[in-house]
């Protein structure tokens, strides 16, 4: 299991490949499910140049760990990986990566979804949009 909070851009496919190569035993897992949340560019809605992600160092890692532990108790998983950006983020930047490895696809799909939904409601991250005229805090997340 690995939790990473990164303050600079990351490549989710490289992170996945690297974790799989270093931490997983070949032949033991049959399903890998991943989710990548990326900041889109804005052809609809408001014109937002970027955003800043703030977090509560220490509590963030602790809650991401709890969420992974819960998933491992609920499904028969082999491993989990969560990577989350903080700091300045630009359109097209990956914001979050969740990956689950298991023997079969049902557990991998369900646990991967669980990690994302639990993360959005409990991990202490806050988004602030950077606008031409200043900043504004994002007030709430929406259901997936």
């Amino acid at each position, binding site marked *: 299991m690995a939790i990473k909070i990164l303050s600079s851009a990351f490549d989710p496919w490289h992170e996945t490949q690297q974790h799989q190569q270093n931490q997983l035993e070949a032949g033991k897992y049959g399903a890998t499910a991943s989710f990548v949340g*990326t900041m889109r560019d804005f052809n609809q809605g408001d014109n937002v140049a970027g955003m800043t992600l703030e*977090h509560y160092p220490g509590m963030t890692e602790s809650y991401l760990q709890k969420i992974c532990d819960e998933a491992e108790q609920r499904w028969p998983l082999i491993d989990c990986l969560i990577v989350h950006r903080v700091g300045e983020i630009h359109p097209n930047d990956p914001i979050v990566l969740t990956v689950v490895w298991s023997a079969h696809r049902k557990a991998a799909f369900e646990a991967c979804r669980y990690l994302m939904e639990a993360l959005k409601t409990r991990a202490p991250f806050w988004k602030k949009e950077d606008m031409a005229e200043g900043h504004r805090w994002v007030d709430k997340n929406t259901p997936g």
Partner: protein
Amino acid sequence: MSITVKFFARLREQVGKAELILDDASDLQSAHDIQSIWNQATENMPMPDNTLCAINMEYSNTDAPVKDGDEVAFFPPVTGGSYLGHHGGHHGNNHGN
């Protein structure tokens, strides 16, 4: 008696400070819960309805007791994960995932 108080995101900006220490020198009252810590740390600013609290990095209720050495944090609802836009809902779904 010493309590570390932290504010994050919008609350940090509203209160005007990120962190402070309440101790005997700042007349910290002997009996207190999170609400009283908020009152002292913010000089009786009204606490916004949706404020979340944590003691030692665990979510807590506003009536939870606070003890010497605790770290108390106040912050707005969390908004991690994928980008969903300012207003959420229909508008946000136009450019989120």
